[in-house]
C-alpha cells in the first residue's frame, strides 16, 4: 500500500526556505482531502456526479427540482431548531412552547416563520416542478420510475403539511386535524381504524399530538430523504431529459469507399 504523499515526500532540506503560512495551510488542507479520498475514493463518485454532461438546451425550468430539494433542506434545518424548543404536550405545553418561540427565543419567530412559509414555498415548487415534467413529457421512457417516486414525494409533502398543521396547537390546527382525520375515516372498511391509528384512540386524546409529532419529525422526513436520494440517483443514472423541441444533429455518415 502506498504511503500518503506527506510521508512519501523527501525530507525538507535545511537550506530550503520555510513556506509562508498560507501555503502551509493550503498544503495541510489538501493533505487531509487526499487522505480521506485515498480511503473512500469519494472523488470518483463526485466526478461521476458533477462532470456528467447535461443535454443541450437546459433552461431555468430545469432548476425547479433542485429548488424543491433545497426547500426541503431548509425545512429540515429550521425544523431541527424548532424541535429544540417545542414540547409536544397536550396539557399545556405545545401552544405555550410555540408562544415562547415566537415571543422570547432569539430569532424564534423568524425561524418559525421560515418553517411555516417554507412549507408553502415547497408545495408551490413541487407543483411547478411536476408541471414542468408533465408538459415536457419528461416522465416517459426511461424515466417512468422517477415520476412515480416523485408522486410519492408529493403525497409525502402534503402529508407533512397536514401533520405539521396540528403542532402549534391553536384553534386552526385543532380543527384542521379533526377534519383531516375524519376525511381519512371515510375510506370504506379500513377508514375507522386508520382514524384510530392516527389519533391513538377513538377521540382526540393525550397521545394524538405526540403521534403527529413523531410522524412529522421522523417517519415522513426519513422516508422523504431516502426517496429523494433514489430520485436523484435515477436522474444521474438516466440523465436529465432534453427539452422536447430540440432535435439532435445527425453525425456525418461515414462512407467507406472500397476500391474494386
Amino acid at each position: 500500500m502506498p504511503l500518503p504523499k506527506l510521508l512519501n515526500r523527501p525530507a525538507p532540506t535545511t537550506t530550503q526556505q520555510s513556506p509562508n503560512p498560507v501555503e502551509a495551510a493550503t498544503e495541510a488542507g489538501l493533505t487531509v482531502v487526499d487522505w480521506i479520498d485515498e480511503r473512500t475514493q469519494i472523488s470518483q463518485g463526485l466526478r461521476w456526479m458533477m462532470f456528467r454532461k447535461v443535454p443541450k438546451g437546459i433552461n431555468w425550468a430545469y432548476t425547479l427540482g433542485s429548488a424543491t430539494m433545497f426547500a426541503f433542506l431548509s425545512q429540515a434545518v429550521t425544523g431541527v431548531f424548532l424541535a429544540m424548543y417545542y414540547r409536544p404536550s397536550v396539557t399545556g405545553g405545545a401552544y405555550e412552547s410555540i408562544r415562547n418561540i415566537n415571543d422570547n427565543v432569539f430569532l424564534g419567530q423568524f425561524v418559525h416563520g421560515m418553517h411555516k412559509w417554507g412549507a408553502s414555498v415547497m408545495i408551490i415548487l413541487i407543483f411547478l416542478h411536476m408541471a414542468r415534467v408533465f408538459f415536457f413529457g419528461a416522465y416517459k421512457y426511461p424515466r417512468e420510475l422517477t415520476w412515480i417516486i416523485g408522486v410519492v414525494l408529493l403525497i409525502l409533502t402534503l402529508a407533512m403539511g397536514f401533520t405539521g398543521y396540528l403542532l402549534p396547537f391553536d384553534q386552526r390546527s385543532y380543527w384542521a386535524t379533526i377534519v383531516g382525520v375524519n376525511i381519512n375515516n371515510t375510506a370504506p372498511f379500513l377508514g375507522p381504524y386508520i382514524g384510530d391509528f392516527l389519533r391513538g384512540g377513538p377521540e382526540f386524546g393525550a397521545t394524538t399530538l405526540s403521534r403527529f409529532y413523531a410522524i412529522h419529525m421522523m417517519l415522513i422526513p426519513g422516508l422523504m430523504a431516502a426517496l429523494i436520494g433514489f430520485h436523484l440517483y435515477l436522474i444521474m443514472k438516466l440523465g436529465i431529459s432534453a427539452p422536447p423541441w430540440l432535435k439532435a444533429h445527425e453525425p456525418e455518415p461515414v462512407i467507406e469507399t472500397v476500391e474494386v
Partner: protein
Amino acid sequence: MNQAEKEQYLREYSLLKNEGKPFFPYAVAKDSIMAVIVMATIMLLSLLFGAELGPKVNPTTTTYVPRPDWYFFFLFEILRVMRNVPKFTPMATIGIPTLCMIGLFLLPLYDRGPERLITRRPIALASGLATIACIAFLTYSGANTGSPNSVSLPAPPGLTAAQRATFYAGEIVVGESGCEGCHEIGSNGNNGPGPPLTHIGAKRAAAAIASTLKNPTAPMPSFANLAKTSPKKFAALVSFLSDLQ
C-alpha cells in the same frame, strides 16, 4: 413505445447529451442561483408575515370558523361543491382525491406514446390545463368563502346614516339567525337548499319578505317567534333583506 422507438429515443438522447455541457459548473450555477432565490423568498415571507399563532385550542367553541391553509383550499372547496348531494360525501372526501392521486401515480404507465412535445400531445395538453384551471378555480373560490355566521356586504350607496345603521344591524341579525346555513348572501353562506338572497330586495317587496319570514314554505323555519319577541330585530332583518338590490 415499442423497442425501436425506445432505441431511437436513447440514440437521440445520447447525441443531445454529447452536444451538451457538463453538469458542473453550468447546471450547478443555475441551481445555486435558484437556491438563493428560494432562500431569499422564504426569509422575506417570514420577515413580512411572521408566524402568527391563533387562539389556543378550544374544542368547546361554537363560534370558531375553521379554514385550512391555502394549499388545501381546493379540497375544502370540493367538499363544499358536493354539499347538495350528501350521498356522495365519501366520494368527495376520499374518492376524488384518491382517484386523482392514482391517475397521477400511474401516468407514465398509461401514457406511453413516444411523442414528448406538448403541442403534439393534445389530450395531455388539455387535461393538464384543465387540471390547473380546476385547482386554481377551486383554490380561488375556497379562499373567498366567508363565514356562514356573518355577512360582509357593503351598505348600498345612497342610504342615509340612519338607514345604514339599520342595514348593519340587520347584517348582525342575519348572522345570528342562521339564514346563511341555507342561503347565499354575497360571498357568505351556502348556496342551497334555499335560494340565494344577494339580490332578494330587487325581487320581493319588504312586505312580501316579512310575510315569507313569518309563514315560510318548508323546510325553511318560521321567524314569527323572532317578530314576536324582538320586533326591532325583525324589522332590521326585513329592512336589510329589502336593501339587497
